[in-house]
């Protein structure tokens, strides 16, 4: 039961990641200068090499900037939750190892 739940969870995670990458548009053709509409060009906040010598990367617009900072916060929160769960699991498996639970099971 636990195993099937784990597999279902892994599948769900894989699908979510695949969905995220498909929707992020990564891997799609960027297109040449002619293909880009002038409207799209306006969205590019960072200057091209003709405007500025050094290209400093940054979020393209406020929406992307906010999304990135929210992502960083969410990522650290997830990391701390996962670490907390892992620590609980470590405590439990160490206890089982100490009482030789798995060796007894194998014998």
């Amino acid at each position: 039961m636990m195993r099937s739940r784990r597999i279902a969870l892994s599948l769900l995670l894989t699908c979510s990641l695949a969905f995220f990458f498909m929707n992020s548009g990564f891997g799609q053709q960027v297109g040449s200068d002619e293909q880009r509409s002038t409207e799209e060009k306006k969205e590019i906040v960072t200057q091209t090499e003709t405007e500025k010598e050094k290209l400093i990367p940054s979020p393209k617009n406020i929406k992307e900037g906010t999304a990135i900072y929210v992502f960083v916060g969410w990522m650290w929160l997830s990391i701390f939750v996962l670490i907390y769960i892992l620590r609980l699991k470590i405590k439990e498996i160490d206890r089982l190892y100490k009482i030789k639970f798995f060796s007894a099971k194998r014998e």
Partner: protein
Amino acid sequence: MNLKAVITGIQAWFDDRFGLSQIFKFLREKEVPQHKHTIWYYTGSAILLFFGIQVITGFMLVFYYKPTLEEANKSIARIMTEAPLGWIIRSVHFWSASFMIAIVFIHLFSIWITKSYRKPREATWMSGVFLLVISLAFGFTGYLLPWDALSLSATKVGTDIPRSIPVVGIWITKLLRGGEDVTGDTLTRFFGFHVCILPVFIFILLGFHIYFIQKQGMSLPVDVENRNEDVNSLPFWPNFVYREMIVWLLLVGILVTIAIFLPPSLDKAADLMAPAPEGIKPEWYFLFLFQILKIFPAKILFINGDTLAVLLFAVAFILFFFLPFIDNKPAERKGKIITVIAYVVIVFAVVMTVWSLL
């Protein structure tokens, strides 16, 4: 047919063909010693983690990168400004390379200090030293790919160093550059090294390195072994892997945060006719070598200073490579002196790096 039966069927299918149950049995039975130096065991898997990130982000970047004189710099600019999340992907690739090389250095020096390379682990050490060289080669070839003024000049300096080697020096420089000077041919060649030749070598060596580690098991530091006490150990799966997962999570968090807040910039495209810019510096992991070459006198007795420096580097590398055979009595006086040398080398490299940055 319920889900459990389907899963068991799939598992059986894979097991019949790939013998996965044998691998899982091996991992369940593998043990990791627990002592005061256990922390160094985590560095090996951290390197693998960053290597994996390098491969994935590298695949993403190669979709957009164009290794030609006209397009190299423009394509990086396009990655940074137009490709979805391109600047973050590039930044993660850039920072994970630095993280990976830093941990490779820590990993090698921890092995040197704990003397984990002693018999029968000499081949593991030697494959590890080659992996360090390949990691540095990845860094060196990757540095030119943005094709900006600084990377062009640094590559000119870097590829000029082998010229000082007697007999084969000029040939090596020409081989690296694809001609007399750094040109578009060098860029194409470096791209080939970076995405094709070096990955082949790193995968082969990594395979050998991991095989040796699994075959010999985790090494005990020499001082722990000499105490002749029983050493506690933990099963690799799942007890140690769960602990490693905590380290990986923290490292990924730090990497992504740094990549977002400190992304690498891009200078304007390099001009082959322009004079070299001021303050040419290689990546941080080459700074100590760069500084040593800088302070070396132009001529010592009748020998050219650069030639002597390169020959000294070569001798140091050979000694480093054959260290397990030189340090064949790790518990005795000779072994202790070699440990002191390790600390001296670390301090020297750090001082040279800081000096170069000043």
